[in-house]
């Protein structure tokens, strides 16, 4: 790590939001895929919803990424070399690998999304149907999941593998934190959309809550480890706006409160937990995921 390393000057409303949407999309897709693989059809509600969430959420991200560039119209250089035109990848650069992963994941998320529409009869395209059905949806889901987890976690790796003190000192934890957080926000998103679509998730609510308990505990452990690893550079997280964002927003409201509520309901039996409260907790999880990323992103640039 090196205090002399320059801050990149990434804006929260481009890159912070990108981290968030990518996490939600990939987290949802991952859960949806697992539901698809191991749910044996019982969790089709979850996987369907997840695939409805993943692709549209992902579509929000290219404008954000491109908007933050100094030369937005050159965004395609991330994939094809400007001079030779050939596809280009730099394996030592998380950003380079991540760009290709985004393409791959995006393609898979699109196919799964299309799949949803086909299965639900919302679209028909007979000429392609045969070719389309050659590749089973599980293949997309599998490939997309791997690419999805990459999308969820690579942004944390991207930050860690720099020389900025906060990011370098918290290496190798932030990628793992973002993956875990993605799972959590993805689940929250799925829950909320299912509620909205009035797919009754009551039985699955308890599964979400179980999942969330495990994931939140891992998250808290990672947050503690990160703050300790940051040492004297953790100071940026204890002063000013980002302290509020991080501790009140991400840790308290986004993690501890939902976890507490979760444990309380679990102790007392889940039927005591009313659905509106569950909805509120889901919103808090999403908010917390957003603020976690913004605060770590921006505090590392102070």
């Amino acid at each position: 790590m090196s205090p002399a390393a320059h801050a990149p000057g990434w804006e929260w409303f481009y890159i912070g939001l990108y981290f968030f949407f990518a996490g939600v999309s990939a987290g949802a897709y991952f859960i949806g895929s697992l539901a698809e693989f191991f749910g044996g059809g019982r969790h089709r509600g979850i996987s369907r919803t997840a695939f409805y969430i993943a692709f549209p959420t992902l579509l929000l991200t290219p404008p954000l990424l491109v908007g933050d560039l100094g030369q937005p119209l050159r965004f395609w250089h991330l994939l094809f070399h400007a001079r030779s035109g050939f596809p280009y990848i730099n394996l030592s650069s998380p950003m380079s690998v991540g760009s290709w992963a985004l393409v791959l994941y995006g393609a898979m998320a699109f196919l799964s999304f299309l799949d949803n529409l086909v299965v639900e009869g919302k679209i028909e395209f007979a000429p392609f149907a045969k070719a389309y059905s050659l590749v089973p949806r599980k293949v997309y889901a599998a490939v997309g999941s791997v690419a999805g987890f990459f999308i969820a976690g690579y942004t944390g790796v991207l930050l860690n593998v720099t020389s900025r003190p906060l990011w370098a000192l918290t290496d190798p934890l932030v990628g793992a934190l973002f993956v875990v957080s993605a799972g959590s926000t993805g689940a929250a998103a799925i829950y909320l959309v299912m509620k909205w679509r009035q797919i009754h998730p009551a039985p699955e609510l308890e599964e979400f809550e179980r999942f969330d308990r495990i994931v939140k505990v891992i998250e808290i452990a990672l947050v503690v480890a990160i703050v300790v690893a940051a040492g004297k550079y953790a100071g940026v997280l204890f002063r000013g706006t980002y302290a509020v964002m991080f501790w009140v927003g991400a840790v308290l409201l986004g993690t501890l409160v939902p976890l507490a509520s979760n444990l309380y309901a679990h102790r007392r039996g889940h039927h005591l937990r009313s659905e509106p409260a569950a909805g509120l907790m889901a919103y808090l999880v999403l908010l917390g995921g957003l603020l976690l990323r913004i605060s770590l992103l921006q505090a590392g640039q102070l």
Partner: protein
Amino acid sequence: MPKGMFVDTTICIGCKACQVACKQWNVLPGEPADFRTDPVEKIPVAVNFTGDSYDNTADLTGTNWRRVRFIEQFPENRAGGRWLISSDSCKHCNDAGCLNACPTGALVRTDLGNVALRQDVCIGCKYCLPSCPYGVVAFSHETGTARKCTLCDERIHNGLGTACAKACPTGSIAFGEVAELKKKADARLAKLKSLGRGKANIYGYKEAGGLNVFYLFDDRPSVYGQPESPEVPQRRLPMTSAVTIAGAVAVGVAALVAFRERGQSDRGGEEVEK
């Protein structure tokens, strides 16, 4: 044969001709952030006095590719006082954090060993900025790209030396084949040591795979604002990736545990269509 520069800080007089020559050759403006426009005379006026000895440049930026640092070492009784001076720029590391981080191939190593930043390829993603442990590469709002010292790429590929080395009046900055420059540096270091300058050291033989722009310092590198053991951040990539994968696995296991067991519950014929 790689080419680079040997900077002998012990004969640097802090004249900053290197800073000006760099700007002249590379057609760089005065640092925009350092100027305000006079409303009456309508010309830019510099407002960047820092109070940091004779250094008003403060940092390497998209338009400042060289910066002379001044370190005053005077005890209260002034005995043995020294004024250390060092001209700082891109080190053109053999294992360069910026180059490793670049997702478009804009940062390239040429056949002469320098790290150039192709302005037509760069998209201004700014990922190279935090990846340089020296804080060299920076973003230029005027071009929308990252910019830094190129070791005068066009000059050195046409039989000339760097602009800064040419302008340096004392020969403190010397351009040439790295192997030859190392001999010169070793000789200077030996000379200084023989004169009792025990803290003298060469910075750049081992750092970041070896720096093609390396320095003779008369004190610890941290005194000159350079990281003592600079690390190339991408060397941590394997470990970080592994831990992140572990995190993903943990999420996967969590999901499996959470969603799978319930699948064998008494929900029986519940249809979860739509």
